[in-house]
């Protein structure tokens, strides 16, 4: 199915993370919230494979539960942002005119905020909470989908099969959803895969800054923030959550690259 073996490796890692998140209660050797102040900051050992953090909590157990937050937030954001972006991109590209102008100017305004800035601002005013992180990253995320879909629709809507459908009396809604949408889903899926990687980093960044999940919740970014405080004495507290984030992001990027080779060979920079 894929030419690149890195894509399969990426898929395997993603499945691994999903299983870890799903079966965290079964796999985690300890309660991720349990504190043990006598053994705080202990190094990896046979009883605690990845060591213990500032509160003496088991790092492996917190990592497994942390996978839940990262994956749930990233998949929720991509599903929401993707749906909104695809819908608005379809409408914008298909109807054109003032709808298109209005939406694209809104896109221009949202793109004027570099990277995470708008998400930081939104979470700062709405309050640090997983739900608000999802809202903020969705507000940020739909834009790239809308731009991509609009561009694709502009190209596809002039094709013969769309004209044929129109001549046959199909409604605009039917043309958009039945004729155009399936023909532009390839690049959308590629974008969605890369977006999951982006959202994992964004969510962890917000948690690292103290703007993500509430204090105490096992989240990869928050674990790194805790680790930063004890970097001198216990570097292992920072190393493992960072490794988990990097592996997850790499895996989604590998799969995204493989999908791009398959659906959009011209867009690939690796295959020249």
């Amino acid at each position: 199915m894929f030419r690149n073996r890195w894509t399969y490796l990426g898929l395997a890692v993603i499945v691994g993370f999903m299983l870890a998140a799903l079966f965290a209660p079964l796999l985690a050797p300890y309660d991720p919230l349990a504190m043990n102040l006598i053994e705080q900051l202990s190094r990896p050992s046979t009883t605690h494979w990845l060591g213990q953090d500032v509160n003496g909590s088991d790092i492996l157990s917190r990592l497994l539960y942390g996978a839940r937050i990262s994956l749930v937030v990233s998949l929720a954001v991509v599903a929401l942002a993707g749906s909104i972006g695809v819908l608005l991109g379809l409408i914008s590209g298909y109807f054109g005119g003032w709808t298109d102008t209005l939406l694209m100017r809104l896109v221009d305004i949202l793109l004027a905020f570099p990277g995470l800035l708008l998400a930081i601002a939104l979470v700062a005013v709405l309050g640090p909470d997983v739900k608000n992180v999802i809202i903020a990253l969705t507000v940020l995320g739909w834009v790239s989908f809308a731009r991509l879909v609009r561009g694709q629709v502009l190209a596809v809507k002039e094709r013969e099969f769309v004209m044929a459908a129109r001549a046959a009396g199909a409604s605009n809604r039917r043309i958009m959803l039945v004729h155009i949408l399936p023909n532009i889903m390839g690049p959308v899926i590629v974008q969605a895969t890369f977006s999951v990687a982006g959202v994992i980093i964004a969510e962890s960044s917000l948690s690292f800054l103290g703007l993500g999940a509430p204090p105490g919740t096992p989240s990869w970014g928050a674990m790194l923030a805790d680790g930063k405080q004890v970097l001198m004495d216990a570097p292992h507290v920072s190393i493992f959550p960072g490794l988990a984030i990097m592996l997850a992001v790499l895996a989604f990027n590998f799969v995204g690259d493989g999908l791009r080779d398959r659906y959009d060979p011209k867009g690939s920079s690796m295959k020249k």
Partner: protein
Amino acid sequence: MTNYFVKRLLLLIFVLFGVVTLVFFLIHLIPGDPVDIMLGDTAVAADKLALRHDLGLDQPVMQQYGRYLGHVVQGDLGVSIHSRAPVLGEIMARFPASAELMIGAMVVAMLIAFPLGILAALKPHGLLDASAMFFSFLGIAMPHFWLGPLLIILFSIQLNWLPVNGRGTLAHLVLPAITLGTAMAAMLSRMIRASLLDVLGEDYIRTARAKGLPERTVVLRHALRNALVPVITVIGLQVGVLLSGAIITEAIFDWPGLGTLLLDGISTRNYPLVQGCILFIATIYVLVNMLTDTAYGWADPRVRVR
């Protein structure tokens, strides 16, 4: 040509207007009373009343909006709640540190990306190419807030070569600049490789080689110059990535820039300061984008026609 620049300028004004509008309404998204949140439950009624009046929150929303717009146009971003100093003054005091960090990161990114991208393109699909591309994957996937601590562990704690945090000397800049610049280096090296590979397949490169020019001249004078046009655009657009990455990098290294100012504003619920920082950073980003776009349009006439 003039038409193109006028269009870009109009879009710039529109976008800046949109940014100011969005930043103004941010404070109205705060659940509950913003003054209660900013001053806390223990504040006396007189202080609350005074702050409500200072922020204009005792007026109708549209009137507040008009007032805010008028002030922003005159460079008045309000007053910081705690220090009572003008927000713009606080921002300008921190801006040089952020600019220093971003320039440092750009230098690091280019020092890594150019040799890596060029070498990868010269021997595509070889071991060096694969290693360079693996680095680029790694660089993109490695979050700032992990790379920073790793560098601190290695260079500050284990080797004791560089300071852990703070600002002042060139040694203080090294780790933050590497932390912030690595992702950009990874992105740029891929871009340089792809762009150079495209150019190396052109007829004029074959002609240059057929003339017997040394390979070094062919690559550096003929190919790289033409491959640089899209790369320069990407460098300009990467300023946005640097601006938001700087917030996290500054937090890791306690770098006294705009990012730490913004985060201080968030933790102390100093919303006029938060609004000011966001508006300032977004405006810089929009202006840099506009300059990059304009430079690209000036360098490549095909862009203006599109």
